[in-house]
């Protein structure tokens, strides 16, 4: 069978490198939950990578990272995603950063579509604060896909938007334009 037309353009995941012993650190959420994560997974976040580098440069022991703008439940999801992608080539996320047609791998599609829309928004916002390019890309694409082909009413339901007459200071007379 002939290969798909666009498969050549898509960056392929790199083969796993011989892994060094995992370096585990504690990560504390804004609501005090403490989780554990492999440093390689945390390096997917540019924000956390800078913090970790700061500790390493000063030779200070890294015991606990505090993430003050993400709650425990969302942080657990972020860490689960990062753990899955810790072996990925960083060039994949960079290559897809500004691409319009983003391909979502099957694991990510399943991981993101099973989340309720509210949790997915929290996850994308957390990914934005932590600067995790791949998670932002896949999350935004998942939200966009779920909105495609839906009517205005269905979109209101999907995003939890009140009906026009329930929204403050809006006039339904001009709502249809």
């Amino acid at each position, binding site marked *: 069978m002939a290969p798909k037309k666009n498969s050549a353009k898509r960056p392929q995941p790199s083969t796993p490198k011989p892994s060094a012993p995992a370096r585990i650190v504690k990560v504390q959420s804004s609501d005090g939950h403490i989780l554990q994560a492999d440093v390689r997974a945390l390096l997917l976040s540019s924000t956390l990578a800078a913090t970790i580098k700061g500790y390493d440069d000063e030779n200070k022991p890294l015991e606990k990272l505090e993430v003050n703008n993400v709650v425990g439940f969302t942080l657990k999801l972020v860490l689960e995603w990062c753990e899955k992608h810790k072996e990925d080539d960083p060039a994949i996320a960079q290559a897809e950063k500004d691409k319009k047609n983003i391909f979502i791998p099957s694991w990510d599609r399943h991981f993101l579509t099973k989340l309720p829309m509210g949790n997915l928004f929290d996850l994308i916002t957390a990914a934005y604060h932590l600067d995790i390019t791949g998670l932002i890309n896949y999350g*935004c694409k998942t939200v*966009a896909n779920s909105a*495609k*082909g839906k009517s205005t009413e269905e979109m209101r339901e999907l995003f939890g938007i009140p009906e026009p007459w329930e929204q403050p200071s809006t006039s339904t007379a001009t709502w249809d*334009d």
Partner: protein
Amino acid sequence: MDMPHIVMTKIMGNVGFLAILNLRKTCKTFRNFIDDVKPINDLKELRITLGHFYVKVEVFLDKNGYDADRCSFVSSYQQAPDDNSWLIFKLYNDGVEFVKKMDGGEFIDAFFHDFELILKNQKWLT
């Protein structure tokens, strides 16, 4: 919806032309955001045919925008037989879908109203 501006722009850039028009009608927040940011969409081409009692608009979208099989559709704005109303239809290869009937006004005004919205939310090609 408390989403960062960059994230919202990224989502809007992926939803496609038709979904953006529908999202615009859900609430003021989305409407203002879309009118302000003018997200990149997948509208490629419009062909407009003006007849005596109708305007036919052929809309061509990027192939990933709407769905894999249908990347274009035709809308028709027509004067209704009773002359006091106008009708909008969507025409497909295999049939016609009635969209809307409105009393009063002219079909040409309805078309220009929609056309203005479409043009207003475009960006220059770079």
